[in-house]
């Protein structure tokens, strides 16, 4: 009897005070660490505030118009876009291939998972130094390998054409592990029966089964992996800061590195805020795109 009445009690009996108390911790944390800083950045982007200076002046959209007129800004957008365009497909298809290979294995799967996941856990700043050695023009392992193959050595990090590609390779190496784990989770959620139905329907080999079962049913995973990898690639910073500092000749200047330079080297906080707002808008629109597509196309 008492149980029934507990369940039947109308919701409005919880008064406003209780509800406010219950949502207070989460709301306070969200406000303090997410909403307020974002709001401050948006407000600062309309001012000429400089770090450490007293006072600030409302200057409307001129930070934004400066940005659009800035050659370096467009250079960093192009570099970031190129970096994303290399890392996303490179990381996704390698991670998918690795996940498929690991999933088919019987023995040592745990070893391979750990091995491929290690770069994710490694500190990128330290790893960037290691990569610097590997890619060193004269003593680096990479050029040694090229020499063995009879290819002329490449100045991976100081050649403006190669620098962003080299960083992209590091980015791919670093993100494969995480994407592999996501793909493995996606693969394990594919019902075994559908694979078996495909085998009975006459799907002969790996290509057929991949095309008719694995690839389509991984759709939601692939979409998620694509968006997260793209957002992470857009946020590339450590390897640039440690290895190339945006060089040579701004060939690896990326958006986040520009923001860092403007905010913490040149102290132009207002301008850096405007850059951040633009960056945030691009990221958020990618996430919205993911949710839209996920709802419509890849869930069955």
């Amino acid at each position, binding site marked *: 009897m008492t149980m029934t009445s507990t369940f039947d009690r109308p919701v409005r009996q919880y008064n406003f005070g209780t509800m406010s108390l219950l949502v207070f911790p989460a709301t306070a944390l969200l406000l303090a660490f997410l909403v307020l800083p974002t709001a401050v950045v948006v407000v600062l982007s309309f001012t000429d505030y400089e770090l450490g200076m007293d006072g600030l002046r409302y200057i409307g959209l001129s930070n934004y118009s400066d940005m659009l007129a800035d050659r370096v800004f467009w250079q960093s957008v192009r570099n970031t876009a190129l970096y994303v365009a290399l890392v996303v497909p490179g990381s996704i298809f390698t991670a998918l291939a690795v996940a498929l290979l690991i999933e088919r294995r019987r023995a040592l799967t745990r070893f391979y998972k750990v091995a491929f996941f290690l770069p994710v856990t490694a500190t990128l700043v330290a790893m960037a130094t290691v990569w610097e050695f590997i890619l060193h023009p004269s003593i680096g392992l990479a050029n040694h390998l090229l020499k063995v193959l009879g290819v002329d050595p490449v100045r991976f990090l100081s050649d403006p054409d190669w620098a962003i590609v080299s960083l992209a390779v590091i980015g791919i190496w670093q993100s494969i592990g995480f994407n592999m784990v996501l793909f493995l989770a996606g693969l394990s959620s594919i*019902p075994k029966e559908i694979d*078996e*139905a495909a085998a*009975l329907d*006459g799907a002969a080999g790996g290509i057929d089964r991949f095309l*008719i*079962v694995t690839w*389509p*049913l991984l759709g939601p995973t692939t979409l998620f992996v694509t968006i997260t990898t793209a957002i992470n690639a857009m946020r590339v910073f450590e390897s640039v800061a440690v290895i190339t500092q945006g060089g040579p000749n701004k060939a690896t200047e990326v958006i986040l590195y520009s923001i860092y330079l403007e905010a913490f080297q040149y102290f132009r906080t207002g301008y850096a805020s405007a850059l951040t707002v633009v960056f945030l808008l691009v990221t958020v629109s990618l996430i919205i795109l993911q949710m839209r597509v996920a709802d419509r196309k890849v869930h069955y």
Partner: protein
Amino acid sequence: MTDIDNAAIDATGLTKQFGGHRVLGPVDLSVRPGEFLTLVGPSGCGKSTLLRLIAGLETASEGSIRIAGRIVTDAPPRARDVAMVFQNYALYPHLTVAQNIAVPLRMRRLSLPQRLPVVGPLLPRSAATLSQINDDVEQTAKSLGIGHLLSRKPAQLSGGQRQRVALGRAIVRKPRVFLLDEPLSNLDAQLRVQMRSELVQLHRRLRVTLIYVTHDQAEAMTMSSRIAVMFAGEILQIGTPEAVYDDPDHLKVASFISNPGLNTLPFIAIANTQLGCQLGAMASASPDCTIAFRPEACATVSSGEQSDLSGRLIFCERFGAEAFAHIAVDYAEHPIIARVEPGNAARMSCDQLVHLSLDVSKLFLFGSDGSRLRHQRRAAA
């Protein structure tokens, strides 16, 4: 149709082990061409494993399988020309009904390059084959009454409609062997009865060799030309439904193929009765044997004189057309269930003393290992 369209299946000495634990066999099974054979048994008895071995989804640990005389023990599913319907239908969720049914035809009639997306349809001779496939898919869908659903996705279909799509995908390429793994267990009771008769008609129309796996004795009894009753990885009895019902080889078989249940009594319970004397000659050979009979083998009698058993009524199940009285009898571990006329049932009251007489010709005698003691009938006569 010619004989090539249906095929005999022969399994010899088939076993399957998982991690050192034997789950199946050794099993010997011969399925005749065009037969509707049902594998029936409780869950975990190995019936699905046997079906999957025949389908090629599992590889046998020992033994061999022949389909239409050809040894296929180690052949992949594709090479066996078998079609299967899964319990959960296993439809491709991203494909429409038409595309789902077309998959087996695409896999067989199109070459690998022709099957590739985008470029495939542009290759020479693709268009003609594709339109032929479309025609066949439409015809199959119409024959199953799902012609109007061709452009839907599986998620938009009811359970019964998905079932038909799965059937369509299996029959569209006219396989020689048709395997069904508990295909009706996800449907509601009414639809299940309807699908039973549709499946039987489908089998009659296609005349393929069909193996049907179920744990439902009603499905086994009503649909099959023969049934194989399985327990603990072995086939205990195989025969027509009537033969298995009327003449069970094993206590477990008799008990599984009984509705609502099989009555069992230790022989000593009736050793001193008239019936006991009738059976005496036999039973003396094995004093710890069990007497078993179905609810329809006993009838209520008015006085104790003609009765073989008596006990107190504890519960009466009335179904309208028939009724079952549950009677607590000394020595019997479980209440004895007797089928009674609904009219009589209405007059019975709980705790009332009920006398039962048994039809000796419908009694079975089983040894302590559960195997049937056969000469019983002669002794009774």
